[in-house]
């Protein structure tokens, strides 16, 4: 997975509440499109009009925000389905970092697994950042620094953020989690050996 250390880019506000992963990527698109093309279909119900043309009023279609890599979002962003393609679609659209008052739990987890940084901040902080992003349309100088846990706005305001230490380490190192866990192979084997005796009904079940 790609490392996340520091990012300097445009931030785009999408301050709708409870944006679900179905609207981020529809079931039709996630089933029919290759991973590399999912970005084009992100937010399709909002991004495109019925005739297939771009909807000029959709927040992320506006000039100045089209190349954003930081998404500033409303409460409970990424709620709903566990579909990891929602993260792939956002990533395909160019986003590397999301800032919101809160995220769907599975979505936030999926972000970390794919090298995307999801930052939770108090709602008033997020609103301030959304306002700053709106004012700074096209300005590419929002900085997210995961080494210092600081967001810097184009005006130079600094906002500290917190993230779970394990997630932070994983993002900074860009580690392959499966490879890391397999280093605990002996502990897993020992657990199962003990557990087979303690809870034999869990293992080797078949129908008589």
């Amino acid at each position, binding site marked *: 997975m790609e490392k996340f250390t520091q990012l300097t880019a445009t931030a785009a506000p999408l301050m709708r509440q409870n944006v*679900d992963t179905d609207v981020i990527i529809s079931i039709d698109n996630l089933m029919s499109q290759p991973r590399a093309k999912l970005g084009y279909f992100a937010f399709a119900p909002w991004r495109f009009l019925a005739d297939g043309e771009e909807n000029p009023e959709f927040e992320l279609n506006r000039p100045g925000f089209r190349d954003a890599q930081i998404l500033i979002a409303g409460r409970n962003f990424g709620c*709903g389905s566990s579909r990891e393609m929602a993260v792939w679609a956002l990533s395909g659209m160019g986003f590397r970092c999301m800032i919101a008052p809160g995220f769907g739990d599975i979505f936030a*987890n999926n972000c970390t697994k794919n090298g995307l940084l999801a930052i939770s901040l108090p709602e008033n902080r997020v609103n301030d950042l959304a306002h700053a992003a709106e004012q700074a349309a096209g300005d590419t100088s929002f900085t997210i620094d995961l080494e210092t846990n600081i967001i810097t706005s184009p005006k130079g305001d600094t906002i500290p953020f917190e993230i*779970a230490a394990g997630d932070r380490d994983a993002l900074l190192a860009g580690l392959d989690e499966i490879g890391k866990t397999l280093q605990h192979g002996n502990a897993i084997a020992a657990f199962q050996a003990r557990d087979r005796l303690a809870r034999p009904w869990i*293992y080797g*079940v078949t129908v008589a």
Partner: protein
Amino acid sequence: MTGDHTLVDKIWDLHVVADLGQDQSLLHVDRHLLHDLSGTMALEEVNDKGYTVHSPELAFATPDHAVSSEPGRDDDTGGRSGRYVRGLREGCAKWGIKLFDLNDAAQGIVHVVGPEQGLTLPGTVLVCGDSHTSTHGALGALAWGIGSSEVAHVLATQTLVQTKPRQMRIRYNGSLSAHVVAKDLILYTIGKFGVDAGSGYAIEYAGPIIQALGVDARATLCNMSIELGARAGIIAPDDVTFGYLADKPFAPKGGQWDQALAHWRALPTDPDARFDKELSVNVADIEPQVTWGTSPGQITGISGNLPDPAQAKDVSERQNIKAALDYIGLAPGQALEGVPIDRVFIGSCTNGRLSDLRLAAEIVKGRKVANRVTAWVVPGSAPVKKAAEAEGLDKVFTEAGFHWREPGCSMCVAANGERVEPGARCVSTSNRNFVGRQGPEARTHLANPAMAAAAAVAGCITDVRKLAS
């Protein structure tokens, strides 16, 4: 027994393989359920990256998301499912994973199959690449949904790297009104506390009302924990649980049953346990619920009216309500009762079980589906279908003009062309009324099975209590 551990604490502690520091634990997974979307993709990833499946004996698979529910279906019916169903079959064959294949006697929606086969057991850690995995908490399993990267992680290691969730308990008190069922309890809870109230929590549902529910109803309740923002919902195992499991095919038998039972009886939350948050719901206030908008929290009792954005508490709320009303095609302040509908869908991991079909059939019996409505019943699994047919429920539905179909997720996820037409309005027993969930521009109203059945025969959203004798 005295102590201060919750049900979730006890299950968690039993499954820690290693403390990874930084609040993270490596947790053992006892049951890994795979389906034809995330399961197929993760099996392919395991292949591509050259990993080995660690414990195939603990994984179980069934195709449900992509498959057609059309009678006489095969792998390719509907045009979308073939690659996914075959991918799942090939992956399972390669690693020796037990598969309940398409048209097998045990195939169905993964969250119906797990409990029904006795794979879901109290005290287990169960995961699946699907957000409605919380369903399995109905039997006292700690169960939650994961993304496909984590599915691959479980396949390769039989573990997950996890931070322990905070814990919430919701107690239900009072007495239920007639025709108010588990679906109404959870929809009401979501409306009352909000769609992100459970974010970061595992929720234990408790109280006399919960203890009185059967396993199917408990499954409905736990199923929609994710619509409350919580990855896991759980109910303490009790005699209802054990009675349900006693004759299930993969549940322990003989001496192992006795051993398991002793273990299970020690699992419920201790009297002195502390939760991070405690909420309560008085169920006496609850009437049959129907969603009016594009989020499960946008809900009212059937006698209620739609909100007026002009009366919203702030700008953000106003925009939210307005966008939802625009999409759903209804006016501010209007009554929900009497709104004409086009489709009815009875099924899904929320409400596709035998007791759900019985509730619906009771309303349908001797009536006809309204002319303007196309109504489907999609049983949650092949055993549900068979049991319903043995009781003659299929005849009740088909004689009324319902379509009686094959088991799968069908119109809940709309993955294989089984969808509501653009602009059409559907009363659905599923779990999500999101924009485009049941098809582009489809308008969804979530309700309980009897309410959906009532809507089918009335041709409009209606109060089931007026139809029931």
